[in-house]
């Protein structure tokens, strides 16, 4: 089943995205091989979240092209979305429905089968099964995040997009998340992640990409070794936003 996935999971060519007067991505060229965990780094406004939103098909690019698993997202949107799971900034859940109702509803949107078993399986993976029948509104931010993660994992995606997934999670949940990411890598699937806890992420990742004002500033295929260089690239930019 997994075998026919192409070598390149994510490929962007000359991607430009502007929001009004702010240029967010200025001709981004990126190639992420399948089966790797990539950590996206860069200062605020470097375009990490925007890139993830583009890959998740929530944001349209102004020009350029993006393909996932070798097919253009502008053409094969639904098919690609079926293979992609995303946890973005907000948990994106219906506050007045319970965890189970939310997951049931989204399972329906993904047209999944054996929904009850699936929910039990994924919720135990992220550790929320005791709260299955609580309304989202009553849950803490960390729990909401875990529900969002469960939704992203439910359809067993080939590509997992995580935008600062650790925010709001306790250390136990973070290690659980790392286990999930490891598991994804070992089954040949791809994970793209942005994070605050850079040092830790460099240990975990196979590849680090530092974005610098909308383009690729630095790519490293051995992040735990290139640590000093990456950290320098990542932090030196943090002062560059200021006017000279």
């Amino acid at each position, binding site marked *: 089943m997994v075998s026919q996935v192409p070598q390149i999971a994510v490929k962007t060519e000359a991607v430009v995205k502007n929001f009004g007067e702010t240029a967010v991505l200025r001709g981004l060229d990126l190639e992420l091989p399948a089966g790797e965990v990539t950590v996206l780094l860069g200062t605020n406004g470097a375009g990490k979240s925007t890139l993830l939103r583009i890959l998740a*098909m929530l944001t349209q690019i102004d020009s350029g092209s993006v393909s996932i698993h070798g097919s253009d997202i502008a053409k094969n949107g639904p098919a690609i979305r079926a293979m992609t799971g995303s946890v973005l900034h907000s948990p994106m859940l219906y506050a007045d429905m319970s965890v189970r109702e939310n997951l049931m509803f989204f399972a329906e949107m993904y047209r999944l089968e054996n929904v009850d078993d699936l929910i039990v399986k994924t919720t135990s993976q992220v550790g929320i099964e005791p709260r299955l029948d609580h309304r989202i509104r009553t849950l803490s931010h960390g729990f909401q995040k875990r529900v969002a993660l469960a939704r992203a994992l439910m359809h067993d995606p080939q590509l997992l997009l995580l935008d600062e997934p650790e925010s709001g999670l306790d250390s136990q949940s973070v290690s659980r998340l790392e286990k999930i990411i490891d598991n994804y890598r070992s089954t040949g699937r791809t994970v793209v992640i942005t994070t605050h806890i850079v040092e830790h992420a460099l240990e975990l990742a196979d590849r680090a990409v530092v974005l610098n004002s909308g383009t690729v500033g630095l790519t490293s295929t051995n992040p735990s070794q290139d640590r000093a260089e990456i950290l320098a690239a990542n932090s030196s930019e943090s002062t560059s936003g200021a006017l000279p």
Partner: protein
Amino acid sequence: MMGSFAVIWEIGRKDLLLEIRNKDVVVAIAGFALLVLVIFTFAIDLNQSNAKLVGPGVLWAGIAFAGVTGLNRAFALEVEGNTLEALMLAPMSRDLIYLGKALGNFLFIAVAQIIVIPVFAVLFNLVVFRWEMLVISLLTTIGFSAVGTLFAAMSVRVRAREVMLPLLFLPVVIPLLMAAVESTSHIVNGRSWSDISQWLQLAVAFDVTFVVVFAFIFQHILED
């Protein structure tokens, strides 16, 4: 294909479930429309001929204005928790999101009408309970929700969305509003099917056009 219908239905059902829990939208629509009716009973001397003359107009104008506020609220609910984006992540063609949301809005306005129309009949002393009225109200509600859903999705990110939605929505639905008012006034005057058939044809044409075109065009709206 069946899967698509199931998705549309699930989105509509989810909206209804949330509405049963929150009672945000239907109460807003029905309450607003009822207030319009009540105010007009004071504003106009309602003898029988006056009621027949202005009643249908008041009814549908009230529902249109109330519908706008309701649609605004309904879409804001989907955007507040960013859940619209969760729907966009799902592997379905995005016209299904439109059709599902339109189905939900259709149900809201329809339920509000079930409350409003009987009150209208009582306040204005008019006979409206004929099966033609059911057809009229069905067609009008389809059109309102088809146009309103798209425009609500568009104006939800606008600074002044409370102003923007009616400005977009009302001019576009005027033909449908005319059809609803004219055929309702035929009904309260005891006319028959043949008198209103032309207006109903117009309403059908309006509904079909906008549902089809807007479903097709909706994909351009969602992604920012």
